[in-house]
């Protein structure tokens, strides 16, 4: 806590530096880029990815992976929309139900993974298909959510200036981030997650409740995915079974760009926030440039990501070598 510039914090510092560098470059290149509005947009537009990615961070830290999140987001949006729109359930109740369903779903996958020692990739892949299919079972048609509560939430927000308002999705994102930060660094559960990912066999011998921890991790990820879905409905005021198709890759990318190792045990919740923002900033920059056709947009995203990840990597590598063994 005393020192910020320690070796342990190097990866996260490098990632932050990359984000600042990226944002700075775009601010110089484009008018209006350096503005509060763009920053709040960055949070709002990526809120659902962010919330999901934070849940995913715990999964990846534990050495697992969760491919089901995108489908769970999609399912949640249509589930909430159907409950509110067709069955006239109050949105608050509908949202709580959705969060419960997401958590139970995650827990179910965790139980399969833990009890039967199945590969997380396959179990959550099955989960991905299952949730997407169930979303269509709920409703093939997209549905809007017309309810006073929703309109109120969407209009609400924390005014930062007289023009810029931090809306509900962004607020939820920030809140989830803070809670996750505390969970990861100030709770036994969080430390157990790191231990399980660092070495599951050793953790077991050290008396860490490996099984229980794993199941909770997937429960948490399921919860975050459902919450991501809820955030999505706050952005769109509608539900659609096709929503968030392929979101899992974006979320995994954000986590890994943030410096968390896919092999588990090493990583940071704060890194994930940076990862989400780096990815979001690149997309925003391309929108501000605005003169690339579809193929060049994809190439630009790839190239920019590459450049900045190589920078991040080189920053963390040089001193790391010195100290290794």
């Amino acid at each position, binding site marked *: *806590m005393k020192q910020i510039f*320690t070796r*342990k914090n190097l990866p996260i510092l490098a990632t932050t530096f990359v984000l600042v560098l990226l944002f700075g470059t775009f601010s110089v290149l484009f008018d209006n880029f350096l503005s509060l509005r763009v920053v709040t947009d960055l949070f709002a537009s990526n809120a659902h990815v962010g919330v999901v990615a934070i849940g995913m961070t715990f999964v990846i830290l534990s050495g697992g992976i969760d491919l089901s999140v995108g489908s769970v987001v999609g399912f949640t949006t249509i589930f909430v929309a159907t409950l509110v729109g067709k069955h006239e359930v109050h949105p608050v109740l509908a949202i709580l139900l959705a969060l419960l369903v997401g958590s139970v779903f995650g827990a179910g996958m965790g139980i399969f993974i833990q009890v039967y020692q199945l590969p997380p990739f396959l179990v959550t892949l099955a989960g991905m298909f299952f949730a997407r299919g169930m979303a269509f079972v709920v409703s093939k048609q997209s549905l809007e959510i017309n309810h006073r509560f929703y309109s109120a939430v969407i209009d609400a927000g924390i005014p930062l200036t007289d023009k810029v308002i931090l809306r509900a999705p962004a607020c939820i994102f920030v809140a989830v981030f803070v809670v996750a930060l*505390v969970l990861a*660094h*100030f*709770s*036994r559960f969080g*430390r*157990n997650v*790191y*231990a399980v990912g*660092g*070495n599951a*066999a*050793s*953790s*077991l*011998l*050290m*008396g*860490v*409740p490996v099984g229980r921890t794993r199941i909770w991790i997937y429960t948490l990820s399921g919860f975050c995915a459902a919450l991501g879905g809820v955030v999505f409905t706050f952005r769109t005021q509608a539900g659609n079974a096709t929503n968030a198709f392929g979101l899992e890759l974006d979320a995994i990318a954000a986590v890994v760009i943030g410096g968390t190792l896919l092999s588990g*045990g*090493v990583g940071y919740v704060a890194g994930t926030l940076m990862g989400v923002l780096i990815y979001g900033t690149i997309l925003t920059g391309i929108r501000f440039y605005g003169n690339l056709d579809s193929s060049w947009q994809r190439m630009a995203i790839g190239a920019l990501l590459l450049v900045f990840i190589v920078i991040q990597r080189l920053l963390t590598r040089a001193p790391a070598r*010195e*100290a*290794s*063994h």
Partner: protein
Amino acid sequence: MRGISKAFRGVQALKGVDFTVRAGEIHALMGENGAGKSTLIKVLTGVHPRDGGEVLLAGQSVSPQAPREAEELGISTVYQEINLIPELSVAENIMLGRQPRRFGFIDWKELHTRARRALQRLEIEIDLHRSVSSCSLALQQMVAIARALDVNAKLLILDEPTSSLDEHEVAELFKVMRRLREQGLGLVFVTHFMDQVYAVSDSITVLRNGELVGEFKTAELPKIQLVGKMLGRELAAVEKVGDTMALGADAKTTGDAFLTAKQLGRKGGVEPLDLEIRKGEVIGLAGLLGSGRTETARLLFGADRKTSGSITLDGRATALSSPAKAIGSGIAFCSEDRKSEGIVPSLSVRENIILAMQAGRGILRLLPRRKQDELAAHYINALRIKTPSPETPIQNLSGGNQQKVLLARWLCLQPKLIILDEPTRGIDVGAKAEIEKLVDSLRREGMAILFISSELEEVVRASQRVLVLRDRKKVGELSGEQINEDRIMEMIATHE
């Protein structure tokens, strides 16, 4: 414990073993590599479910299903292969799972205080924030012990806790163990060091091939008989083993310099030092924990990049910038950390043996299968590796047998220089004597050997010359008649 049995696929590891530890005693558990010591402990703490038998704790029948439950019952354990979380800090590893909390949140300040206190009991001062992976193996072992001591246990189990500790550390540990015994704890102590057994233990239980040989009072069992019980051989045969231990220093060095290092060093690692290794010579590296022996070895092998100095091999300047190049020039390096730098866990014994040889031949010229089988069979036989078959994954072997497989990996290369970093770590007496014999015969064949061991006795016996390191600096060199334990200790202690 009564009538404990345990079988793994194809191996009966324990056959109806009885084992009793009383409160207030230190009980040594002895046996050859693969005798079933670690398995017995793992069955006791619930790592492996037992096939038969029963465990009684203070008269109550218990069956912990996981180490956590054993810990709750008051059984605290240090397992054989160091089990820590590499990327977490020293402090966290000590306190994992029992972190002090305030208002439900981890109290980091308190956590560090408690971790420091736990280490202080063993008289160690280290940066608590360092990640365990950046610590040397000996330090890791100390951390694991500190962790076990932090629990309020009724029974403390230590499975080869001293295998990479130096004498000073061992003495420190024994002090703590004796203190705990006074407090009425039961302690189980596994080791292959005879002297240590006699130094601390009250009674000894001997296992052989998964069967109980018997329980004895330490004071009533002469060393030589203990060895006999472990090996299951007659006294005469045991005495012969004892003989081989006296091999060594007599022969004079022959041959020219094979490797000469000038001002070899690494920033932040070892300070520049000069070193010469001749053909047909064993050079010992002596020093305390963290004195830089392993670092020096890694530099010679190209596993770490040197930042100063030069190396000549057979009179030619060489870069040795990578392990592959070093191996290509006839250097072999048997690492001290067999779990993370040695074994390839899911590959078979055979594949582990031929790995380095195959790497030397390159991708295309695969060693014919027949040759592979021959090599594997030869070394399993020669080193008495206890394995159900050459195709068994190495992870299923006992610790000592894994070590032998790794030795085989390097021996089959017939290198010109072999660096042995703690080669006898976790190896039983019989095998240890054999390895020393082996080292001697390799030397006679003209191989150069760099021998690192925390056991001074061993270094003294095996080496023609000894380099003494301290604080990652070379502080002196002894040769021939000068070599004895006291001189070395003196150099380590007095040099300023």
